[in-house]
């Protein structure tokens, strides 16, 4: 039962190395699977990608030349292999609908979405978590019912509808917020993109006007997104909290005479932080893709818009590239919540 310490350490090391290797392999395989599925879906789409390049009136010669140039004359496995090789050398190919390299497109569109989704998730967390906690701690009261219903509404409302109504009300009628797009026309193109996140770039450039203008444009779409994540987060928080509040150790805390505030936040809330992180991670990832609908309504030059347009034009490089990026973010977020899980939950250490 007591092996020599060196061999013990070796075993731990071995385990750690194999854990890391396993992790890398699974991530890699997940990526490859992601690529393969998107790739093959893309190839069976009944849309001819060549047409997106040459238009519908091109002559046969022009059409064929473009086809060969796009590599579509090769057998599917070869195309896939070429694509994968490209991906690992940082080349996602060229988008036929914008005519630019996909990497360039994504580096332009993705930050816009990221910015919106991030503000959205911040709203969702800052509002949703306390709401969930309040609802749980007053289970059954009217305030709980209202929070529940608000939460369920978030599940039941079409996002594009809410976005349009929001625009009509807060922008057109009340003029409280900026309209569609990331900035007023007047400010457009004044700061050169560094990170692509306008809020950050404008601060870096010291352009506070632009910063505030960007906020007025961002706030509405982010709030709409935020509403959906808020609904989800509040709901999950409530249900986690209820689970905790019914636990014996909460009663134990009460037996000690601990104030209710401490019971709720320290005893009931602390244990669910970990679960909440997973929930938040999930809904953050959800927001990234959920922005597809919102972006159309708000003319937001984001990745969701890019992706759908690309999809509808069989612009497969663009579709693959954006799916890859969003998928990568999904995987990344999942892993981050795994790591945080380990850091925050003593049971998992």
């Amino acid at each position, binding site marked *: 039962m007591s092996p020599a310490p060196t061999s013990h350490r070796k075993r731990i090391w071995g385990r750690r190395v194999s854990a890391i290797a396993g992790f890398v392999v699974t991530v890699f395989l997940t990526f490859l699977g992601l690529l393969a599925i998107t790739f093959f879906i893309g190839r069976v789409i009944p849309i001819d990608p060549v047409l997106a390049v040459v238009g519908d009136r091109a002559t046969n010669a022009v059409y064929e030349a473009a086809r060969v140039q796009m590599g579509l004359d090769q057998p599917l496995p070869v195309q896939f292999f070429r694509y994968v090789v490209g991906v690992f050398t940082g080349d996602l190919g060229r988008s036929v609908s914008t005519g630019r390299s996909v990497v360039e497109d994504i580096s332009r569109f993705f930050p816009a979405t990221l910015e919106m989704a991030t503000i959205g998730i911040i709203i969702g967390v800052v509002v949703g978590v306390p709401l969930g906690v309040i609802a749980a701690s007053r289970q059954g009261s009217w305030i709980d019912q209202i929070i529940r219903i608000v939460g369920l509404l978030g599940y039941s409302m079409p996002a594009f509808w809410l976005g349009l109504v929001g625009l009509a009300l807060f922008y*057109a009628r009340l003029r409280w917020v900026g309209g569609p797009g990331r900035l007023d026309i007047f400010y457009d193109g004044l700061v050169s993109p560094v990170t692509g996140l306008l809020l950050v770039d404008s601060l870096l450039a010291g352009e506070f006007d632009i910063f505030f203008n960007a906020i007025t444009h961002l706030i509405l779409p982010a709030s709409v997104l935020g509403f959906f994540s808020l609904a989800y987060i509040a709901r999950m928080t409530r249900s986690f909290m209820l689970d905790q509040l019914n636990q014996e150790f909460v009663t134990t805390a009460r037996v000690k005479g601990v104030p209710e505030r401490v019971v709720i936040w320290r005893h009931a809330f602390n244990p669910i932080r970990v679960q909440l992180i997973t929930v938040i991670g999930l809904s953050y990832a959800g927001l990234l893709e959920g922005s597809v609908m919102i972006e159309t309504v*708000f003319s937001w030059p984001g990745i969701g818009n890019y992706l759908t347009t690309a999809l509808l034009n069989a612009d497969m490089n663009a579709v693959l590239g954006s799916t890859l990026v969003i998928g990568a973010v999904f995987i990344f977020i999942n892993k981050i919540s795994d790591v945080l899980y380990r850091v925050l939950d003593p049971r998992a250490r």
Partner: protein
Amino acid sequence: ATPADALVIAQNIDDIVALDPAQAYEFTSGEINTNVYDRLVGYEAEDTTVLAPGLASEWVADDAAKTITFTLRDATFASGNPVRPEDVVFSFNRVITLNLTPAFILTQLGWTPENMADMVSIADGKVVVTYEGDFSSAFVLNVLASRPASIVDEVLVTENAVGEDLGNAWLNTHSAGSGPFVMSDYRPAEIVRLTANETYFRGAPAMKTIIIRHVAEAATQQLLLTSGDVDIAKNLTPDQIASLPADTVKVETFPQAAVHFLSFNQKTESLTPPAVWEAARYLVDYDGMTETFLKGQMEKHQAFWPKGFPGSYDETPFTYDVEKAKQILADAGVETPINVTLDVINSTPFTDIAQSLQAGFAEAGINFEILPGTGAQVITKYRERTHQAMLLYWGPDFMDPHSNAKAFAYNSDNSDATYTATTTWRNAWAVPQELNDKVTAALAEPDQAKRNEDYIEIQKEAQASSPIVIMFQAALTIAMANNVDGYVNGATSDFVYYRLVTKE
């Protein structure tokens, strides 16, 4: 509110694939090319129906020798480089060498990469254009007024060429023309910014900046317009237009060259009887649609060459008459019901038209199963001739009746192998030889008046019997702020001009 010297437009611009005039083939890129480049001759903002001198101040046509000699005016590109005959030669050569989509417009003139040195040359500081084929110089001038014939700045383009691309990549994001504007910024699916060219030979435009902002949602465009954050909204529906506030917004209507049609693929057995074609003409509720959801957006038109252009045939002999259609079908012994699919682009107003057609045709026992798809999807199918019925539209490639006659009344080889981008071939309609001949003859007719007569004749024939039912001619209703003046929108997107716009 928008700045006084800037025109802000809300428009769906995600159709842009390329902006290089040698490659551009979409509506929006056509618009931008027109405002950024000049051609030797062209239809100008002041009157879009008259062919006017462009970079060529004058020209001499020799129909016998099949040459036209152009004298260039004294102009400069926006870059400051002078416009030289070499630029013209370079520009035409580029199109033929690159051989991208719109090249076919120029290759009609018999130009090939091999013979270009002979076909376009410089003599005495003038450009001599030679063409080959049975057509008149009038036709050639129309071709040279088209988009791919735009003149680019050879010096600037060559500086920015990469490898063998003749500057193609660079021109897709920059401009190198002599037109009234310079494209100063283009971000796909986001924005196009045009800046005034102060050295434009017709005089610098009043608007210093034109901003075309990508807004896909019509409702959002409407919001932006009524809020005063844009000056023009381009893609509003008739219903939206009807409800705009008259005190701040005005609406202008521009007839368009595009015709909308319903066509039957002749590879579908049940759609081959001419009686079905004829009955179909009585099953479209032309007036019902144009008076309601197509109001201001389409006009009833039943021949392939649009109204308002020389050679058009404006009679509309068919009306919605279910009984008559039933009679025609019964007389011909066509068995109903006929069940076919109808492919349609899944956006307004196409789906609405399709649904209206569906309701109308069902009355006579022709049942459509509507298959909406994205534009790309529908075109893919169309190109493969795997559709059954199709609801689509056609805009001429250049403003000569032949452009449409070829598409709607000419098909000399209906075999699968010889793909042709005409409506006739794509619907597998083997046009009767007699009609084919008439189209060829009209093209070669040097007398303009006679030529127009010929086209009217061809249209009458095609209207009487063809599996293509032309229903409407499009119109553009564009809503703009009251203070915007001088916006010109000709019959196609190639005729959109911003240089006369002023704002009070």
